[in-house]
């Protein structure tokens, strides 16, 4: 029995039509297969980084290194003048969990101006609400604390597949490629210091309050208050922990607003939301953050998990498929092999070793 040509073409047409149907309603198809986006943990902890406050002193970078026992980093192209004195990481790396980068344009005359200006940006793990790194890790080595929402890596579980490095939309987890026994390393919001009631290294050392620590809920309120401020207003910026629970008490930093805030708190919705929030006077994409119409407001993990759950929840679909395949296979295997078996029985092993 062979496939009849007409039957086959009909099958082809049907498949083509269903593909076209998917094409007609991409939003619906995507939504139908999407896993429910995850919500914020009410007591989640995080950071609020205000680019307009940051003076680029990099005290936070140095403090992060000493808090996490990480060495200085000297890029290869600097080795002729930098004998090891200057920590000069260009980007996040296995030795650098926190970095200050700078946006530059034209004459770079004015701070926080998009044209002919410059602006600072602090990069570290954003402790996403719906993290790709958590979703992708096969051995649950990436963990999100159910209370604080802090995302951490357990090297005793991690097999070093580096899918988290490949998938993180913020390019945060890094692998130690040098040496035979590398591990994944990334910012864990200094959870070892929080456990002792201390502030994360970067917050503790920040003189201006540009990096502020606290409950994400409080930080959001604070951020929304700031974006209503106008240039010329004076504001008392809190420093350290916004609730004053972690670290010692510090006086606020009074400052006159010079550049208008963008009326958006980065991290509230982007990619399902993050626990590190950003305020800035220049556009977030200029600061190298994923931003714009092509960046969704739900995490990519909700898409892949949606597909996985659609196909594999309770293993019902695979079990049904397997049952069908077994029934078909039993019918057809028997048919093909009964003949071969008879041959074998008759010939008692031919000259070609066909037993």
């Amino acid at each position, binding site marked *: 029995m062979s496939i009849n040509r007409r039957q086959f073409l009909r099958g082809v047409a049907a498949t083509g039509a269903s593909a076209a149907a998917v094409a007609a309603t991409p939003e619906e198809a995507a939504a139908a297969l999407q896993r429910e986006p995850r919500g914020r943990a009410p007591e989640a902890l995080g950071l609020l980084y205000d680019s307009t406050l940051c003076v680029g002193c990099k005290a936070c970078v140095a403090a992060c290194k000493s808090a996490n026992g990480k060495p200085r980093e000297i890029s290869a192209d600097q080795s002729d003048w930098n004998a090891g004195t200057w920590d000069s990481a260009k980007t996040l*790396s296995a030795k650098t969990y926190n970095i200050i980068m700078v946006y530059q344009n034209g004459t770079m005359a004015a701070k926080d101006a998009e044209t002919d200006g410059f602006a600072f940006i602090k990069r570290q793990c954003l402790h996403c609400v719906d993290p790709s790194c958590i*979703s992708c890790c096969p051995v649950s080595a990436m963990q999100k604390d159910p209370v604080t929402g802090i995302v951490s890596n357990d090297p005793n579980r991690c097999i070093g597949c580096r899918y988290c490095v490949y998938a993180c939309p913020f390019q945060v987890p890094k692998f130690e490629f040098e040496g035979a026994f590398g591990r994944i390393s990334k910012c864990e919001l200094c959870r070892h210091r929080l456990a002792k009631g201390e502030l994360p290294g970067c917050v503790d050392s920040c003189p201006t309050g540009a990096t502020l620590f606290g409950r994400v809920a409080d930080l959001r309120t604070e951020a929304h208050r700031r974006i209503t401020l106008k240039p010329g207003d004076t504001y008392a910026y809190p420093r350290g922990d916004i609730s004053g629970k972690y670290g010692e008490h510090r006086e606020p930093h009074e400052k006159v607003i010079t550049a208008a805030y963008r009326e958006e708190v980065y991290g509230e919705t982007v990619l399902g939301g993050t626990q590190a929030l950003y305020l800035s006077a220049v556009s977030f994409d200029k600061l190298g953050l994923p931003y714009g119409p092509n960046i969704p407001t739900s995490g990519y993990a909700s898409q892949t998990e949606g*597909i996985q759950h659609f196909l594999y929840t309770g293993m019902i679909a695979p079990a049904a498929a397997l049952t069908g*395949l077994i029934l078909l*296979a039993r019918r057809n*295997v028997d048919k093909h092999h009964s003949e071969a078996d008879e*041959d074998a029985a008759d010939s008692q092993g031919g000259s070609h*070793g066909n037993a």
Partner: protein
Amino acid sequence: MATHEHAPVGGRLVTAPFIFLFVIVFAAAVILTQRFVFGLGGVTHLSDGYPWGIWIAIDLIIGTALGCGGLVVALLVYIVNQGEYHPLARAALMTSLFGYTMGAIAVMIDLGRWWLGYNIMLPWLWNTNSVLLETALCIFLYIIVLIIEFGPTFFERLGLKESRRRLHRVMFVFTALGVLLPMMHQSSMGTVVILLGYKLSPLWQSQLLTVNFLFTAFTMGFAIVAFESTLSSVALKRPFETRLLSRLCYIMMWVLIIFLGVRFIDLLRLGAWPLAFRMDVQAISFWVEYLSGIAAIALLWQERNRMHPRYIFLGASAMLLNGFMYRLNCYLIGYDPGHGWSYYPSTGEIIVTLGIFAIQIMLYLVFVKQLPVLHAVRKA
């Protein structure tokens, strides 16, 4: 049903090409020693921007697609009940066994913390949301299934008639698993890169990646069967299996037409076509992929061509190139982490990849010469 008989091809094992392959495998082994002593950074160009290189994109993602010959033939022989393809089944199963085993070995070589690799076998650590976990478990189970499916060939060689008969009685279960598992695995390899989000160019990023990886598993699985069959006919001086292959060509040509059609509509839907005309590396790579698919269809369109070993070979090669480029694009070329990262494989990485494929060809030669894999040639 004489076409169902299988016999070892026989002949000398250590030939000049065999020694050549051995040299490549030996070089790869030297590099791998370095890899384990000095770490991944010692021999590869992997970086925090490009944590996955060709060992994943080619050895695993493309290598296992080349291991889909067994899936395609099993699907036709046992499920769609096209018994006439049976003579191709054993060689195809064997290629799958090699493709998947070497894919799994490539993963282990690539694991940054390989000494903890057994963690993936500990159910209490499983993250069932992880697509990667599913692909890993499917590979593992499918390799076991393939070994069982290949069992009768060993039993025949060893003359264990009773064992063969007993195994045969339950074979339908493994045949079914041998279709389901690679389909789960192949489609999920598409889902893996959906998680890359904006880092994968819209020329490839799509909810349909899951389906598209299944399409390319079929086309590449078939193409490797045709490719291998034609090559081994020439190399081992055996008659061409043209009649069977030409019917397969017809079916696979249509699978490819649907795949290219789905891609076309999908890119329209996503508004990604303009990116194909920017003439950067990604666009060029896209056109190599898409045009090789069209070339395969053009080569196999006429029935006259499909009866001709040369056209079958060329068509299958073009089809292979199409799937190869599609997958390479999805995992490497279409991927851009930004921030100035770039990647080009190191010589060491290339040698190991060549070694992974060389060892498969060596195993193929040993197996077909020593075991009843290819169907017996009727002596006149």
